Structures are given as structure tokens and as C-alpha cells.
């Protein structure tokens, strides 16, 4: 580490510096410690799911964010990697092969890579709409095949295996969720690091260049198609790794792992998190997993809210959550972040109340329309009331209206504070 420190003073662009290693060290520590904070089984289940989703989302963003390729069928690479891993798992069990479980994701990765190599050979010719369409077609094709090719995909019930029959890994048999957690975390850190480093290699840099301006890249000696192809293969590999981890964690894969719904949600997750920054998909995966587990317990309509949130993100914050966070970086650097706190509180709290009020109205309408006959009572925000009465409606509408009115009134203040926070002290404008 002293060497790294020494180097950082001389080569600001060069190799590993403490500053660039810090996020990695912190996240590793957090990942190792967190099971001691959230010890319940359900928390660990959620965290496992989250970690797998992070790998998948990061791999997806290698295409979308870094290569500018929009794939509508990316679940296939994760799914096929996962199916392969279940088969390997069963094979190991049947023939008692000496393959330790932690190495299983490599097979998933290689299979994802293989499939990506085949598909990429013709799909990466163009980016943009054509690529998106091919990815959709191939995705649907493979998803549809899963019902026909029963030998590999197991038909409607899918294929399942048992992770514990493998060779014990230093005495660990992966009977418990927590053991699986550490296995997944190991792969998470390894794959995230590799994906990050990939973005720093010549082909990773050129992926950015091709995304921004494929024609110019061609006049610099690079074939845009080959650059896309390499990104596509790399993405396929890491999707396969995520699939392998999925196989280990859930021990079953079905058609649901391949279909358009799955492909769509990874797009949603990645975009929500922000495609412009490496850590964007990580945020997206964490937020989405929390939303889908916590929110889905609260309301039947969670997908409606997630859909609305997604659309709002596309329209107003195309940089996603990561973009919103990084937007504040200049103000933070200027030491002006404090100036934003008060206006933010004054605007976003009413705004939040307004959104919750709207959600409450939506829930009430839903209950009114689809509730069972005679079931007139509903509980919202810890209050139980009769939906068929007028008063709750008046209250909800009044609160929502007032909250939005207050938000609107305070917006100029935020805009003003924003400009002040982002201008240099003493600057003329």
C-alpha cells in the first residue's frame, strides 16, 4: 500500500491508487460484515438475491452503458448459464466428480460466453435499433425453445439440483444460506472488479468510443463491430456467472429465468440505477431488490409504481439514481452542499407526501373497484377506514393537493440554491 501511495503522487493517471482502491476495500468490508448486522434468514435471502442481481446488472451495463447496445433478451445468457450449472451440479452428484461448488459459476460463465459468441457474431454488426431487435428475437426464440427442448430446459417445471452433494470445500458443504452468501460475495467482488478493470482496457475504452461515435472509431483503426463483439462476449460471460450463482442459490431454473419479463427487469434495474456510471447498476439492483421485496409485501400494485418510477426516470433523470448523485458532486467539491439541504427538505418532504398521497388515492380506487363485495374497510398508513365513505377521500385529496402546491411553491428556491451552490464563490454570474 505504501508503494501505491508513493505512486499516486507521481502518476495521477497511473495504476492503483489508494483513492481508487478505497471504494473496493470499503465495499468488501461491508459485504463481509453485513450478515452480522442483518442476521435473519430472510435478510440473507434478500442479500443473496441482491448480490446476484448486481452481477447481472453490471454485466448488462457493460452493453447498455459502456457499449451503447440495448438488449431486450439478456436474461437468456444468465438463464442458459444457470441451466448449465444445474446440469453440471447434477452430473457431479451422479458421477461423484471432484468439483468443488465454488468453481461452478465458471461453467456458467463459459456457457454464457459461448452463447454470446454465437449470437454476437451476427447481432453486433449494428448497434441501436437493429441490435435491440435481434436481441429480442433471439431472446424470445430461446425462451420459446425452453418448452420444446425438455432435455436441457426441463420443460415447464424446469431443472433442479442439489448443491450440497458436491465435494466439500474446505469442510464447507453449503447447507446453510450464510455459506452460500459468502460464496456469492466472493464472486460478486471478483466479477465486479474484473468488469471494472475491463472498462479500463483498450477494448473497454474503445467500447465507450464506439458507443459515442462508431464512425470516428472506424477512422481510428478500430472496427466498431469487433469492439461491440468483445463487449458482448464479456457481458455474456458475467451474465453466465450470475446464472451459475443463481443456480447455486435457488437450485432450480425455469422458463421464467429466460423470458422477456426477466430481460425487461434487468433493463429497468440498470437504467433506474444509472447507466452512465460504473456503480449505477449496483444502486439499481439494491433499490430494485428492496422495492420488489418490501413494497410487494405492502401492496399488490407495486409493479405499477415501479413502472411509473421507471418512466419518470427515463423522462426526467436519464442518468438514473447514479446520475442524480453525481450531479451533486460539483456542489460538494465547492463545499456548497450545505446550501442545498434546507431547500431540499422544504421541497422534497411535501413532494414525498404528495406522492404518497397519490399512491393512497390509487390504492383506494383500486380497493373500491376490485375489493371483495362487502369488504369496505381498508388500512393505509396505519389507519383503517371505510372506502365507501366520503371523508377519507376528501382528506386524501386535500393532503395530496396541499403537498403538491407546497412543492411547486418551493421549487424556485431549490433552483436558486442549486445555481448558487454550483457557482464559484465570488464569480460574477
Amino acid at each position, binding site marked *: 500500500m505504501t508503494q501505491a501511495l508513493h505512486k499516486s503522487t507521481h502518476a495521477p493517471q497511473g495504476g492503483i491508487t489508494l483513492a481508487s482502491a478505497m471504494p473496493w476495500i470499503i465495499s468488501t468490508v461491508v459485504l463481509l460484515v453485513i450478515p452480522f448486522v442483518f442476521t435473519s434468514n430472510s435478510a440473507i435471502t434478500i442479500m443473496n438475491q441482491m448480490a446476484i442481481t448486481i452481477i447481472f446488472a453490471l454485466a448488462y451495463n457493460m452493453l447498455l452503458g459502456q457499449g451503447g447496445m440495448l438488449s431486450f433478451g439478456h436474461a437468456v445468457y444468465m438463464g442458459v448459464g444457470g441451466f448449465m450449472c444445474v446440469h453440471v451440479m447434477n452430473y457431479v452428484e451422479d458421477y461423484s466428480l471432484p468439483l468443488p461448488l465454488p468453481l461452478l459459476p465458471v461453467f456458467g460463465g463459459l456457457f454464457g460466453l459461448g452463447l454470446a459468441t454465437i449470437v454476437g457474431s451476427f447481432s453486433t454488426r449494428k448497434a441501436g435499433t437493429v441490435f435491440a431487435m435481434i436481441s429480442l428475437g433471439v431472446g424470445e426464440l430461446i425462451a420459446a425453445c425452453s418448452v420444446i427442448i425438455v432435455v436441457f430446459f426441463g420443460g415447464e417445471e424446469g431443472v433442479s439440483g442439489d448443491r450440497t452433494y458436491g465435494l466439500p470445500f474446505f469442510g464447507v458443504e453449503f447447507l446453510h444460506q450464510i455459506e452460500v452468501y459468502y460464496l456469492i460475495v466472493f464472486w460478486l467482488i471478483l466479477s465486479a472488479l474484473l468488469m471494472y478493470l475491463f472498462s479500463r482496457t*483498450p*477494448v473497454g475504452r474503445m467500447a465507450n468510443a464506439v458507443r459515442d*461515435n462508431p464512425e*470516428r472509431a*472506424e*477512422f*481510428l*483503426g478500430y472496427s466498431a463491430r469487433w469492439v461491440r463483439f468483445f463487449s458482448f462476449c*464479456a457481458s455474456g460471460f458475467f451474465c453466465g456467472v450470475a446464472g451459475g450463482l443463481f443456480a447455486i442459490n435457488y437450485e432450480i431454473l425455469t422458463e421464467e429465468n429466460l423470458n422477456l419479463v426477466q430481460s425487461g427487469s434487468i433493463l429497468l434495474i440498470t437504467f433506474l440505477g444509472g447507466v452512465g456510471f460504473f456503480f449505477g447498476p449496483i444502486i439499481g439492483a439494491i433499490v430494485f431488490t428492496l422495492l420488489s421485496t418490501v413494497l410487494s409485501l405492502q401492496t399488490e400494485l407495486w409493479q405499477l409504481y415501479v413502472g411509473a418510477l421507471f418512466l419518470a426516470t427515463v423522462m426526467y433523470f436519464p442518468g438514473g439514481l447514479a446520475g442524480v448523485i453525481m450531479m451533486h458532486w460539483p456542489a460538494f467539491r465547492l463545499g456548497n452542499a450545505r446550501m442545498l439541504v434546507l431547500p431540499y427538505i422544504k421541497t422534497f418532504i411535501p413532494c414525498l407526501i404528495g406522492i404518497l398521497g397519490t399512491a393512497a388515492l390509487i390504492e383506494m380506487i383500486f380497493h373500491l373497484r376490485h375489493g371483495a363485495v362487502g369488504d369496505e374497510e381498508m388500512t393505509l398508513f396505519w389507519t383503517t377506514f371505510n372506502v365507501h365513505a366520503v371523508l377519507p377521500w376528501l382528506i386524501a385529496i386535500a393532503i395530496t393537493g396541499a403537498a403538491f402546491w407546497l412543492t411547486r411553491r418551493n421549487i424556485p428556491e431549490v433552483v436558486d440554491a442549486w445555481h448558487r451552490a454550483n457557482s464559484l464563490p465570488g464569480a460574477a454570474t
Partner: protein
Amino acid sequence: MSAAAALQLEGLRKSFGKTEIIRGVDLSIAKGERHAVIGPNGAGKSTLFNLITGRFPPTGGKVRLHGQDLAGLAPFQINRMGLSRSFQITNIFPKMSVFENVRCSLLWAKGYRYSFWNMVSKSRDLTQAADAILEQINLTERRELPAGVLSYAEQRALEIGITMAGGADVIMLDEPTAGMSHSETDYIVDLIRQVTENKTLIMVEHDMGVVFGLADRISVLVYGEIVATGRPEEVRANPKVQEAYLGAALEAEH
């Protein structure tokens, strides 16, 4: 001449639909020559550039780079043979930093190809070369800014930097000074002179001051045909050229 020529065009033709834009261009540009292509608007200068660099396929005729036929080659293959070009409309990577723009243009030439096992930031050679180019195009202070936020003149300078960074020995510039003020033009002309030292330069330009100041030889393209090629003073004296094009421009110059 033909074997030594850096770039040779033989009966080059291009039609879009029924309209013939380039009607048989023959031109030979020697190694180390600075050659300017001038002509009125719509004469086909940019099309000529696009034909040479493989952006469009020609309808007929041949382009030879160092004696090698370029027929059927893609732009990236032509670039690897040592021909690099800039664009009339600024064509950079707007979201990437100025430094990254230059570094990307160095990657192939430095032999990195499609490597995914080297870290670009680890290569001191690469960083230094990119910084040297930034120094040369006078953009060191803008190093970390996204290229899209640079001023127009700076973007043009970056465009030239990217074009010549790969170390190509034949450089084609499409209207490098278009839309620039006088002082900016002077800066770019100096820059071009500097970076094309010992290289072959082919450029399209409207500013006659730039053309006569830089070029060793000039070709005049009118309606897809070269009406005259020669040293600046020969072209200036050519009555055909004066009639077709230069007369008005020269009067405006003086």
C-alpha cells in the same frame, strides 16, 4: 511517379442515383507533399474525401495508397494502412474527456488492438504520448474536460489532434478552418504546418489564405472534374481556374 506516390487516384467516379458527382478524377500526390483541393461549393470535394477513405464505395476507378489498391476495404482497414482523416463537421467523442479522445486515437497505432488484458492507465508510454499531443494542440489545460464542452476552435484542434495522433503518414483534412475567426485560423494553420512535418497532407479548404500559405500543390475541382493541378502560382495564373472559380475569390482576397 506512380510507385512513389503516397496517394493515387485513377479515373475515380461516383454517382448517387443518376447524378454523377465525381466524374473521373486522376490525381497523384507524392510523398511528403502538401496538397490542397479547392473548388466551388458542390464541386464534390467532400465526396472525393469520402471515396478515398472508404466511407462510400466508388462507382468506378481506383484509389491507391502507397501503391496498394483500396477497393473494398473498410475505413478501419484503410486507417491501419496509414491514412487518417478529419471531418468537415466536427467528429469527436463528445462524452469522453479530451485526454481520452486523444488516447483512444493512439491505441491502435501503439499496437494495443482489441486487448482486454492491458490497463490503459498503466501504460506510461500511452499517457505520455497522449499528453505530448495535447501539448502540441495546445489543449493541456482542457485535459480532463468532456470534449463536447470545448469551444468550436478547440474542438477543431482536437479533431486534428485525433487525426494525426495515430501516426498516419497520409493525413487528410476536410476544411480544417471552416467557421473560424482570423486568429483561430492562424493558430490552426500553424498547428497543421507543425504536425504534418514530413507527412503527406491532403486538404480541402475554402480559405485561400490558408491554401496558398500551406500547399505545395493545388488541385481545382469543378463539377466532379479536376480542371487544373499545379503549384500555387501556376494555378493562380491558370485562366481556366480564374474563370471557373478563383477570379472572384482572389478579388475578395485583395
